[in-house]
């Protein structure tokens, strides 16, 4: 290697690009991820700006307009008590999206911390934490939720908390598994030989290598939380009756004749759940690719 050649190349790339700039650039170039991001922003926008977008209230009944098929007045028709379905979908997004995001954040936080400590430390610590995880996994979630609802009163916040506190074990298991394999990699031993502290090894060397599976788990988690919220609302333990959520709108339409003859009542909320889950999934995919230096983007 001649020094002349080397120095010209140094000049060409002398401005170092940080990891995050690079990751951001890759992310914005990822078409599906951008689609997901735009869709998710749109969903958030219509939920937040709902009062500006529709003239109707999501709660007030209109008994003159029950079970109307879509018209120019009610774009997506009305439900069994004459409320505008489109309006309810917009407002429902507030509940469903925040339940999904908040409860998944809670479960990620607990799951990642417990899983990484268990996987990195191994031995007795691992044993203890995993038995704890197993214990949480075996809790009958509905019983707990009913108990919590009885003790603290049913509310969206309790639903978020309970969903978060009951879904972390699967994340913990996943993260632990990743840590178990990664900590045997030579680069972890290399980091130890350099004198890197345990804490830094966990967060700088091992954790970034688990991002891809965590990203996938997050997207599944959000979807799961939105659906779990639907079941809770159905049981009357989550979102309370007049307040709409995508989940309880789906449950509204469970009689056979609605299912067969009035698809506008259940199809749109179902599509919204699907769209939300899909867009989060794409974002997860994009994040995984953007953070992986090996992917060419």
């Amino acid at each position, binding site marked *: 290697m001649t020094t002349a050649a080397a120095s010209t190349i140094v000049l060409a790339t002398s401005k170092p690009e940080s990891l995050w700039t690079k990751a951001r650039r890759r992310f914005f170039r990822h078409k599906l991820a951008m689609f997901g991001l735009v869709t998710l922003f749109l969903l958030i926008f219509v939920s937040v700006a709902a009062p500006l977008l529709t003239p109707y209230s999501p709660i007030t009944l209109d008994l003159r307009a029950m079970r109307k098929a879509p018209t120019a007045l009610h774009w997506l028709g009305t439900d069994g008590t004459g409320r505008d379905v489109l309006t309810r979908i917009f407002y429902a997004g507030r509940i469903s999206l925040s339940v999904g995001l908040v409860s998944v954040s809670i479960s990620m936080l607990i799951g990642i911390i417990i899983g990484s400590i268990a996987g990195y430390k191994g031995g007795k610590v691992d044993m203890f934490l995993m038995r704890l995880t197993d214990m949480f996994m075996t809790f009958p979630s509905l019983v707990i939720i009913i108990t919590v609802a009885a003790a603290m009163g049913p509310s969206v916040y309790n639903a978020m908390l309970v969903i978060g506190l009951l879904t972390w074990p699967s994340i913990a298991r996943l993260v632990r598994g990743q840590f178990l394999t990664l900590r045997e990699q030579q680069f972890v031993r290399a980091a130890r030989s350099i*004198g890197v502290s345990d804490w830094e090894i966990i967060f700088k060397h091992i954790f970034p290598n688990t991002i891809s599976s965590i990203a996938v788990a997050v997207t599944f988690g959000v979807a799961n939380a939105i659906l779990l919220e639907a079941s809770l609302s159905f049981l009357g333990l989550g979102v309370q009756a007049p307040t709409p959520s995508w989940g309880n709108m789906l449950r509204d339409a469970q009689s056979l004749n609605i299912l067969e003859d009035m698809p506008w009542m259940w199809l749109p909320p179902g599509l919204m759940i699907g769209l939300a889950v899909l867009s989060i999934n794409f974002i997860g995919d994009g994040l995984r690719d953007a953070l992986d230096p090996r992917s060419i983007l």
Partner: protein
Amino acid sequence: MTAPMPSKTLVEVKNLKVHFPIRRGLLRKQVGAVRAVDDISFDVYEGETLGLVGESGCGKSTTGLAVLKLLEATAGEVRFRGQDLTHLSEAQMRPLRRHMMMVFQDPYSSLNPRMTVGNIIGEPLGVHAVGAAAERAERVQELLRLVGLNPAFINRYPHEFSGGQRQRIGLARALATNPAFIVADEPISALDVSIQAQVVNLMSDLKSQLGLTYLFISHDLSMVRFISDRVAVMYLGKMVELGSRDAVFERPLHPYTRALMSAVPVANPRLERQRRRIILEGDVPSPAKPPAGCRFHPRCAFATDICRQEEPALRELEGGAVASHRVACHHAEKLL
């Protein structure tokens, strides 16, 4: 390569044992131990390369890891510049780590795939707070140049490099803090043969340039012969022979070393035809149940009763203090 002068001792290993417990049953009761390294002692002198050879599973890598305290020693002590490392906590050990680094066998898994070359090589500088950020960046480029890589590679990722280049990156990382002592654990065995020579040459150049001391672990006898000043031979967790390179290669004293040396091909075809292979019978016994007496006796052509009963100590055989050549065999005199 300069002649080995028994100068100041840099690393002193005394009666080192590394046993891995075998646990069975519900209560994880210990039923035995794999004696990966079983009571070995040796010194590494400042400025020398000590080659550590032996077949797979003889405990040479374990020795290397235990010397750097990356594995906990079961017994014995390791001293670095006179300081006993075995009782230090990880926090107490940290400031010493900048003086003793390691080069790893697998150039693919020893570099974090999500870190840039600059971050990988600069990490030891950060951990030991060497210089300001700007100085570190400069140092990283200097290191890249030192190991024969383009300094512009600083923002690239490990997957963009070949095995040999990756090993150079690993070497640059090990050299970042100007260590005195480097344990190279089979640094070339995962590389192509054509690349092996390059890396070994580089290591040997760096040694004379920077005054390094190596513990060079390998099963490749010709490479060890090329780079080492002294050679230690291990068999089943024991050190069977230790001496200057020429002594060990030209006048091997232990029957095992002889068998090992006879396996090295010779470049000269006429000599190659004369080469007599000593083929050892049987397999290496399990280190969990090593044979009594001399561990080599079940496979040794010279074994007698004493070999089956008494474990031979590593003892001085020829020469004075200048060219020390030690061997662990009851019958070494007869084999001279």
